[in-house]
């Protein structure tokens, strides 16, 4: 018994020793040194001369990340239509007044130059504009947060570029903790099948290549449409939906139809989800969690609370949302369902 105790003690010492040394290592790396050369998500080598003080973001995902990394004051310009993003008015109302640099579709190069930025964050879709800005001597980081791994890469990249490594690590750790929590909580549930109705109509859905599929999988749901390999919303038929017969139907946050429409649709009456009224819309009052925003892990948590409320209750979910937004966005957030 004594030997066993000793062994446990020894083990714990070794483990804590390890963790101390690793946290020490983290400490030494929390400051970015300038100038630094980074490889962005287009594979370009970008040299950042000094800590950025004037940042322009042309993509709502990077804009939200700037808030989470405490770079509100350094942000001088963002993408158009900021009023579409409720998180800005809650966590950074000054963003609504910032100059716009256009949308992902039509980006305004001159407006960006007029802000004299020392760092511009743009999605890789704007490659043409990135090239022009580079030609004019502007520092641009191309980002591509289109999957979970890529989003984590984006967070680490932007955090390193802006001297916010510690905050970036905290955010990544939080995401990891939430995902691990889901794994442990939901390890022994009877997996429920889920159908996700798209924004434009119920009969469009997300296949395995879409981000929504990742969220459902992380929440231990079985996406009935995971055999579809379309990279965009795929159209299906009523018959297909009846054949899948999902346990739960989720509705995308910007959908033009509602739960009532589904309950009143005579074609759907035999589906389990409709019989049990197991239909819910992904809440969109804070951020679009069904897109790869920094807070998208909350999308998985919400789906879990919807599928397995006995394991992960709505109250706990609400607490996690408050916790996340008060830590990273300094706001009191609550979910409207």
């Amino acid at each position, binding site marked *: 018994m004594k030997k066993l105790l000793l062994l446990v003690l020894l083990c714990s010492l070794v483990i804590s020793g390890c963790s101390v040394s690793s946290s020490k290592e983290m400490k030494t790396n929390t400051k970015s040194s300038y100038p630094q050369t980074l490889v962005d998500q287009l594979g370009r080598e970008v040299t950042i001369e000094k800590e950025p003080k004037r940042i322009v973001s042309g993509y709502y995902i990077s804009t939200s990340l700037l808030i989470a990394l405490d770079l509100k004051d350094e942000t001088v310009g963002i993408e*158009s239509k900021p009023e579409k993003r409720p998180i800005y008015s809650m966590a950074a109302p000054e963003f609504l007044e910032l100059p*716009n640099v*256009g949308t992902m579709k039509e980006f*305004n190069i*001159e407006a960006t130059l007029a802000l*004299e930025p020392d760092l511009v964050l743009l999605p890789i879709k704007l490659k043409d504009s990135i090239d022009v800005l580079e030609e004019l001597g502007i520092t641009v980081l191309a980002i591509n947060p289109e999957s979970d791994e890529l989003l984590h890469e984006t967070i680490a990249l932007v955090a390193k570029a802006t001297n916010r490594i510690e905050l970036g690590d905290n955010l990544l750790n939080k995401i990891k903790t939430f995902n691990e929590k889901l794994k442990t909580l939901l390890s022994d549930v009877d997996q429920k099948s889920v159908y996700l109705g798209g924004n434009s109509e119920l009969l469009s859905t997300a296949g395995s290549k879409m981000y929504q599929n990742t969220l459902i999988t992380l929440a231990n749901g079985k996406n009935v449409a995971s055999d579809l390999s379309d990279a965009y919303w795929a159209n299906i038929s009523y018959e297909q939906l009846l054949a899948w017969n999902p346990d739960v139907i989720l509705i995308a946050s910007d959908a033009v139809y509602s739960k009532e429409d589904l309950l009143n649709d005579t074609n759907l009456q035999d589906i389990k989800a409709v019989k049990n009224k197991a239909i819910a819309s992904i809440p969109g009052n804070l951020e679009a969690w069904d897109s790869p925003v920094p807070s998208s892990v909350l999308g998985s948590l919400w789906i879990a609370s919807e599928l397995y409320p006995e394991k992960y209750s709505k109250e706990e979910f609400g607490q996690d949302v408050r916790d996340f937004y008060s830590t990273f966005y300094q706001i009191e957030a609550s979910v409207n369902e």
Partner: protein
Amino acid sequence: MNKHINKFIICFAVLLGILSIVSLSIGRYQIKFEDIPGILAGTASSMKINVFINLRLPRTMIVILSGFALSYVGSVLQTVFKNPLAAPEIIGVSSGASVGAAFAIVILSGGFYITMLSAFIGAVLALFLSLFIASKSNQKSLASFVLSGIVVNALAQATIMFLKMIADPERQLASIEFWMMGGFNTITSSKIVLVVPITVISLVLLMLFRRQVEIMALKDEEAKTLGVDIRVIRPIVFLLCSIVVASIVSVSGLISFIGLIGPHLSRLILKHNSSRVWMVSGLIGSCLLLLSDMVARSIGTSEIPYLCFFCYK
């Protein structure tokens, strides 16, 4: 009559001059008219010089050139086809350029330069195909050119449809659509160094053929008695027109509606059709395109595609 037309040419040239100065001094980056001398002398801030030389000036130049070239070509084609509805689309050039651009975006996943080159090649190939089909017809009449243009257009549309189908909807499909809407928002000086000389040379050649083109407005037999062999001159004029349109469209996307409206406005004003009127038509085209370019880049925070203004291509 010629003096009367000359007055109009001068009038529109002056108007174009004024519009270009306005165009050079508006935009989201603050460069005022009084900054321009400083920029040219090199005493302004380096960013101002950069923006002016690399963005503003090339953009204004390419807009003026595009408006002029497309309208002038439009006038020539309407004369040659003896049809007020003729436009660069009629010989399949625009849709050929679209196929080229879509091909570059989807298959080659190319950037600006590859897309530009591919659009140009597509346009020229479409022209040759159209001339080839027309040459197989028995009667070598104008109608066979129109008909072969329609065939080439149909083929091009089918190809575009196919390319759109296999395109990645998130990125490539949107790129194709935006390319087709047209616009000059990523024009820089390095992007127009190829296009400007090609366009200007073909345009000057086309102007040298103006007598022959005027004669082509007559019946084929009449033209022959006046010493113009339609069978030789027609393909040359088409080729020059197509090279002009192809090089413009390859950097700007589909903005060819200007090639229909410019000629009509000039004829509406002058009630006459001659090679001098085509000059007026070209100048009107430049003014119109410059105006819509100014509106497009200053009305909102983001750039508005041209087809929103010239939406009846």
